């Protein structure tokens, strides 16, 4: 049996965290152990980021930290201090959906929707790096995000769909 002495709540230290989330600045005092996923969901009320496995395997909690996909269940909120975060709530601009959102809907790239925010954010990061990926490149890029419903084929199609839409946008 663990006999660890645990500090009372009041004695627990907190740290100041300032982050920009979806373009908006936020500051909060948090426990150093607070996970980024919980900071986003509970402190900021952005519940689009989901937690699925607790161990960095499933990718449901994926957000972009300074543009790079990270699994927010194994990042501490304090590690995000001074940095920029994008969550699923930041994809839509005004009334306009992000091309990846349109693509997931059009290609039936989601069923229960639980993995979808993480899948879309990883896809956005991929397309920024590689605007015209092959099937294999998409499958490799998404291999840290698990989907239990779709069998991935329509997700791969959705990423192609978004790539084509972004190419058209860029060309016009």
């Amino acid at each position, binding site marked *: 049996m663990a006999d660890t002495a645990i500090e009372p709540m009041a004695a627990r230290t907190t740290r100041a965290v300032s982050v920009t989330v979806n373009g908006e600045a936020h500051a909060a005092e948090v426990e150093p152990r607070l996970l980024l996923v919980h900071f986003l*969901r509970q402190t900021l009320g*952005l519940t689009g980021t989901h937690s699925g496995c607790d161990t960095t395997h499933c990718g449901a909690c994926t957000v972009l930290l300074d543009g790079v996909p990270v699994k927010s269940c194994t990042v501490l909120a304090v590690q995000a201090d001074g940095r920029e975060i994008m969550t699923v709530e930041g994809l839509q601009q005004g009334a306009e959906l992000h091309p990846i959102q349109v693509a997931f809907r059009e290609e039936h790239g989601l069923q229960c929707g639980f993995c*979808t925010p993480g899948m879309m954010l990883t896809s956005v990061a991929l397309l920024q790096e590689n605007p015209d990926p092959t099937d294999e490149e998409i499958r490799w890029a998404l*291999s840290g995000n698990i989907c*239990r*419903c779709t*069998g*991935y*084929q329509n997700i791969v199609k959705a990423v192609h769909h978004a790539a084509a839409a972004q190419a058209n946008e860029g060309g016009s």
Partner: protein
Amino acid sequence: MATTEVRGLGHSVKRKEDERFIRGKGNYIDDVTLPGMLHLELLRSPFAHARIVSVDTSRAEALPGVVAVVTGELMAQHNLAWMPTLSGDTQAVLATDKVRFQGQEVAAVVAESAYVAKDALELIDVEYEPLPALTTPQQALEDDAPLIRDDKEGQASNLIYDWEAGDKEATDRAFAEADQVVELDTFYPRCHPSPLECCGCVADVNPATGKATIYMTSQAPHAIRTLFALVAGLPEQNIRVISPDIGGGFGNKVPIYPGYVVATAASLLLGKPVKWIEDRTGNLISTGFARDYHMHGELAVKDGKITGLRTSLVADEGAFFADAQPSKFKIGLFHIVTGSYDIPAAHVAGHGAYTNKAPGGVAYRCSFRVTEASYLIERLVDVAAHELGVDPAEFRVQNFIKPDQFPYESATGFVYDSGDYEKALRLALEKLGYDELRKEQAEAREQGRLIGIGLASFTEVVGAGHGKEYDIAGLRMFDSAELRVHPTGKAILKLGVKSQGQGHETTFAQIVAEELGIPYEDIEVQEGDTDNTPYGLGTYASRSTPVAGAATAVISRKLRDKARTIAAHLLEASEDDLEWEQDRFSVKGAPDRAKTIQEIAFAAYTDLPDGVEAGLEGVHYYDPPNMTFPFGTYAVVVEVDRGTGAWKVQRVVAVDDCGVRINPMIVEGQIMGGLTEGFAIAAMELITFDEDGNCIGSNFTDYLLPTSWETPAFELGETVTPSPHHPIGAKGVGESATVGSPAAYVNAVVDALAHAGVRNLEMPVTSAKVWEALQEAGLAE
């Protein structure tokens, strides 16, 4: 068929539910937050079998932020230490006497935050006296095995049930007269549905009114409400179960779990909302797993025809018999094991045993053990074909039930509704280029490469009831639909089932669109709130479309009948002189004299004929006259690496016949998801235990799920053989691919090695197992 404007059957319209999901605006259980809400965490047993000597909660209670610590003893004071299961057994809510599996719930902490509650778990001191753990049913059924369920009066052994179906004597005669008998012993290992969202609830018992509102990850909210009323002794009208958006279910979210009960009890005692969110390890080690089924099968063959089938089965049910399955059928619907074949005599015998493992068995897209049955027959047929030296495709065709034999009564008592098995098989072979592939396989073998082709021609039985034969915990397996058409011609459809990703909000609106002519965009589908939807048994075992879909079609037709009466009044014509087309009644021969469903709906509230009740609303409870029998053929091509035993899927062709398809896009999505989970079970997913009963597979490092990288690409095809008894001819499709595909993958790997004498490989077919087989067969590089 309706036109694209109405978008009824056969249209791949985009899903309505996606609008919130793609914006991150779904409302899953962990998104539910209520004012003053407390957080509950469960302490789980580290031992598989141990007597509880003492539980000391004093250190945990002293931790600031902790509101209460709940033990089995406290639950017992309220008569809630045990609860009934959905299969007529009992299960400990919080252990009082013994723990019976690793991960069993022992105590709970309610605190101001989940972090503090987890801290406090480490401060609960439990003294255990370990007992020997029984980790296989064979061990558990030995004469001198320790008794796991010593809590049950009259329980003298670890045997739960004996069950049989079919005709033993006729089967014995078939075997006595056979030219050849083919046997297979195989084990369908324990795996886990692992929906990406774990289980959880938010229980909110209002201290002033006594009303309990319980938000819960449940695939069957109505049945759960009734059981809660019975367990807790609460008046049923005071219990409201709400299933919010569910992040995948696959049968994992049908049973009642201790966390739900403890959180509700805690809310009742504390007068505050209490949230319990399971972590992944808790999900993997304590909730509804799948399979763990030991099977022996024999086929009697005479003149190339299968004349008899005999099976004996042993089910590992874990420490509590907690399957949600039809109560009269202790081995589920395993007796569908004759599959797609015309087998005159069959006998199925099985028994179930308690072990020191988590309870469950029938979850994971399986329709009550249809998955195990399909696997056994499709493996047996392949082994028989290889032993007889017949092509596995042709051997199947020779033995298929023929189209003119439907309705077909199987030797174990099912009446198959419709099918054309050869057509589906031939289409799969054609898409695959089967004959050419067999040649390539032979050529490759000459060059030292191992290619395998595997087939599975499955038949499922889904869509339970009818209610006389099929019930869960006494509740008959009907389902319901309530349709309200508003004065402006828009509608709300309320259902007793609950989507977990299947797209009900779209599909069921399309059924109404087809039947009543209201555009599908104008129909809102509501599910999951027991205060606001009609009673139903829920979504599992591929039953939503067969049962609730039928209820939806029937209530739509009933409202159309009423619409005819109103239209006749508006058009000043006789009802007999009216004809219906898509969305309107018109006078025969005068199509200009017509009233649309929207005009009729308005009149239902504003301009009614004398004596006609106002409104255009109704509810229908549908009790299916029979089950439905989806079928198909899956074909898989693999290449095996002779150096490492690794195998790679090169092609998957899936031809499904699920009757009439409502939304083909959604149907194909269901099939591809199932093909992936079937691949996962065949290749990698495994929950196993060491000899002390420690669960190996308690996180996603040990329990492997396929990612986009391993998952093959799929080529889909369809045939359509409508169900003759279903109002729109649909059969259900959610589980076809998990039922049918594991055998196709395994048959393919075995086929690659069969020429060297390999006849069986056990799931999951890991590289290590294949490597050993290669060594033994002299095929290793």
